[in-house]
C-alpha cells in the first residue's frame, strides 16, 4: 500500500501549478482579457493539459499515456476550479473510436477539428424501441447510389441543437442477425430531413432531445469501420461512458453539502445535526461514500499497476454509485423537510435547488446508460459466470 503518486511526479505537479498560476486569469469568462473558449482550448492542448495523448498529427499534444499525469492535471484544475476545456461526446466518445477504427482520412478530417472545439458532435444510439436492448435498433439506412438514405428516430440525444455533426448507429443489413446488421455513420446535422425535438425530463429541463430522420442522404464513405461492424464500434465507446456516471469525488463533495445543510437547517430551533436519527443516516451514508472512494482508488491503482487486479470493483460502480447518489440527495431533502420541496424560482431553495434536481437526475442515471437491472445481469453473467437466461427468438 503506497498512496503517494511517487516523487517523479512532484515536478510534473509543479509544472501544472505554474501553468495555472500564470494563465488562470485568462480562462474563459466575462473579464475583458479572458480568452475565448476556443483559444483556451488551444492553449490547453498546446501545453498538454487537454487531448494529451492524441498524436500531434491529429492536433493533439502527442504525449505517451500516463494515467498518473492525467490524474494530477485533473486534481490541480479541480483544486483551483479552472475551466478544463471542451468536453462533449465528440471528444470523449467519438475521438477514441476514430483513433482505433477510423480510416486515415477520417482521422485527418475529424479529430483535430473536434478536439479544438470547432466541430461539436452529438450521439445517435438509443431509440424509443431500443433501450436496454440497444442492438434491436431500427433506424435504417439504405444505399441509394453513392449515398445512404437514413430514416428513423433517435432519442436521448444530448446537445443535438448545438451539434454540427452526429455519430449514429443505423441498421444497414436488415437480413443479418441483430448485432451484425448495424453500421456506424457520421453526418452533418444540417443535412435536410433532420428534425430535433427537445425532450423535457422529470427535472423540468430538456437535457436530451429526440431526433427524427426523414430521407436523410449521407455520402457512402461516411462510415466508420465496415458495413455491419457498427455494434463493435459502439461497444468500444460504451465502455468509455459507464465509468463517468458516478464519480466518488462528486459524492464526497455532496456529502459535505448535506453535512453543512444539517448544521444550518433547524426544526423548531434545533439544528438537524443534533437530531440523532438524521445523524445516524448521515453516518451510514458516509460509510458507503468512503467505501466507493476507496473502491475508486483501487481501480485507479489497478490501471497504473500492471498485474494488479481490481476484481469486480469496476463492474459495480455504475450500479452502486448512482443508487448511492440518489439516496444521498434524498437525505438532503428529508433534512430540509418541506423546505426541501422548493424548486426553480422558490427563494427558499438551498444550494440552487440542486438537491431536488439531482435527486431526480440520478434516478435518470440509475436508468440511463444501462439500467440497474442490466447492470446486475452483467455482474452476474460476466462477473460471476452465471448463465444467461434462455433466449427468446424474434417473432
Amino acid at each position, binding site marked *: 500500500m503506497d498512496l503517494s503518486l511517487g516523487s517523479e511526479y512532484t515536478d510534473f505537479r509543479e509544472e501544472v501549478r505554474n501553468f495555472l498560476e500564470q494563465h488562470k486569469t485568462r480562462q474563459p469568462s466575462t473579464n475583458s482579457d479572458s480568452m475565448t473558449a476556443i483559444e483556451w482550448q488551444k492553449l490547453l492542448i498546446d501545453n498538454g493539459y487537454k487531448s494529451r495523448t492524441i498524436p500531434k498529427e491529429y492536433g493533439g499534444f502527442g504525449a505517451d499515456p500516463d494515467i498518473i499525469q492525467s490524474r494530477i492535471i485533473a486534481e490541480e484544475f479541480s483544486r483551483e476550479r479552472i475551466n478544463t476545456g471542451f468536453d462533449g461526446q465528440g471528444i470523449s466518445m467519438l475521438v477514441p473510436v476514430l483513433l482505433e477504427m477510423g480510416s486515415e482520412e477520417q482521422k485527418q478530417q475529424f479529430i483535430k477539428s473536434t478536439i479544438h472545439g470547432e466541430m461539436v458532435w452529438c450521439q445517435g444510439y*438509443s431509440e424509443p*424501441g*431500443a*433501450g*436496454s*436492448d440497444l442492438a*434491436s435498433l431500427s433506424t435504417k439506412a439504405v444505399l441509394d447510389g453513392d449515398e445512404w438514405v437514413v430514416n428513423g428516430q433517435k*432519442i*436521448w440525444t444530448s446537445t443535438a441543437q448545438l451539434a454540427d455533426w452526429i455519430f449514429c448507429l443505423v441498421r444497414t443489413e436488415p437480413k443479418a442477425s441483430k448485432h451484425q446488421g448495424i453500421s456506424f455513420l457520421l453526418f452533418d446535422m444540417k443535412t435536410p430531413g433532420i428534425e430535433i425535438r427537445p*425532450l*423535457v*425530463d*422529470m427535472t*423540468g429541463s430538456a437535457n436530451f432531445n429526440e431526433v427524427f430522420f426523414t430521407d436523410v442522404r449521407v455520402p457512402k464513405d461516411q462510415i466508420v469501420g465496415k458495413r455491419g461492424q457498427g455494434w463493435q464500434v459502439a461497444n468500444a465507446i460504451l465502455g468509455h461512458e459507464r465509468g463517468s456516471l458516478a464519480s466518488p469525488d462528486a459524492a464526497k463533495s455532496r456529502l459535505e453539502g448535506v453535512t453543512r445543510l444539517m448544521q*444550518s*437547517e*433547524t*426544526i*423548531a*430551533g434545533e439544528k438537524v445535526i443534533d*437530531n440523532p*436519527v*438524521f445523524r445516524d443516516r448521515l453516518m451510514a451514508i458516509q460509510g458507503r461514500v468512503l467505501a466507493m472512494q476507496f473502491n475508486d482508488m483501487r481501480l485507479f491503482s489497478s490501471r497504473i499497476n500492471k498485474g494488479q487486479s481490481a476484481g469486480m470493483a469496476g463492474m459495480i460502480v455504475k450500479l452502486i454509485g448512482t443508487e448511492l447518489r*440518489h439516496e444521498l440527495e*434524498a437525505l438532503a*431533502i*428529508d433534512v*430540509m*423537510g*418541506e*423546505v*426541501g*420541496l*422548493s*424548486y*426553480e*424560482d*422558490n*427563494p*427558499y431553495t438551498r444550494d440552487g435547488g440542486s438537491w*431536488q434536481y439531482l435527486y*431526480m437526475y440520478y*434516478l*435518470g442515471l*440509475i*436508468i*440511463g446508460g444501462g*439500467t*440497474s*437491472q442490466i447492470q*446486475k445481469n452483467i455482474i452476474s453473467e460476466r462477473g460471476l459466470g452465471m448463465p444467461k437466461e434462455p*433466449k*427468446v*427468438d*424474434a*417473432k
Partner: protein
Amino acid sequence: MEFGLSQEQILLQDMTSKYLAEQVSLARVREVATNESSNAAIWRELAELGIPGLMIPEVNGGVGLGALDAAVIAECLGYHVTPSAFLSSAVMAPVALIAAGKDDLLAAIAAGERRVGIAFGEAIGARRGAGITVSGNSISGKCLFVLDAEADDYLIADTDKNLYLVAADATGLQRANLTTVDKTRTTCELILDQVAAELMSTDPEVYNRSLDLGRIMQAADTLGAAQSMLDQSVVYAKQREQFNRVIASFQAVKHMCADMVANLEPCRSLIWYAAHAIDEVPEEARLMACHAKAHLSEVGKEVAKTATEVHGGMGFTDLVGLHYWFKRIGANRQLLGSPELVREEAAKIQGLA
C-alpha cells in the same frame, strides 16, 4: 363485522374516479402545472360533486360524511394527481372550524366559494426562516409552505397549538407563491406584520384533530398516487418489448411489480383503520394518523422510484408524465411533518419518548 368500504363508499369512489378520469385528464393536470390554467376551475367542478363540503354538516350546506369517505376521495385525487385544495379546504380547515364551533364560514366553503389555507408549520416544527409571534389579536412573522397559495383565509397554528384565522387580504399580510416540485398543488409564504387575527381555538384537540385528518388524507393521497404508478407500470411492462419479449416476462420486472403490490396492499387497510379511528376509536386516532402518514411516506417513496425504473427511460421523461405522481408522493412525504418527525410523535403519543 365488516372491515372495508361500504356500498355507498364504493359508489362514491367509482363516481369520483370516473369523473376525474374523464374530466381532469393528465392533459388538464399539465395545464394547471404549467400555469396555463388555474386550479380554480377544477375546484368549482369538484364543488358541484360536493367535495369541498364533504365533511361539513348538511345544516351548513355540506354532505356530512366522515373521515373514511374523505379518505376514499383523497385516494381518488391522488390516483389522478388532481390539482385541488382538498387537503386544506375540504378537510383540515372545515374540521377545525367545526370543532372550534365556528360555523359561519362553512357554507361558503361547502359551496366551493371560499378556500381556507393551512399554516401549521409553527406547531409541527418551524423550519429555519419561519416563525411567528402572537400579541393580543395580531400576528407578526413568517409562515412557510402554507397549503394553498390562492386561499381566501388562512388557519394559523402557533407553537401552543392555538388556532387563528386571518384573511388573505388583511392589512399587513403579504403572500407569495412558493414553487415546489409538485405543481399539482400550491404552497405559499405568508409574511405578517401585525396582521389582525381571530382566535379560533385554544384547545389543542382542535388542532390535533385537524392535523390527524390532514395526515390521513395525505397518506390516502399517496396510496392513490402509488397505486396509479403501479398500475401504469404493469400496463407499460406488458406492452413494452425488449429482447423479443414483453418486459413483463422478465423476473426482475415481475418482482419489482410484486414488491410494489406487497408493500402497498397493507397500506390500504392501515389508512382505512386510521380514518375509521378518527370517528369511532378516537383514543387511537392520533397514533394511527402518525403511522399512516409515516408508513405511506416510506412505501410511497419506494413505489415511486420502482415504478419509474420499470418505465425505463420513458419514466424519466415528461412524455408520459409519470413524474407528476412521483413529485406528488414526494410532496406528501414532507408536508405536515416528515416521517422521522412523525414517528417521534408516534412514540410520544405512546409515552415512549
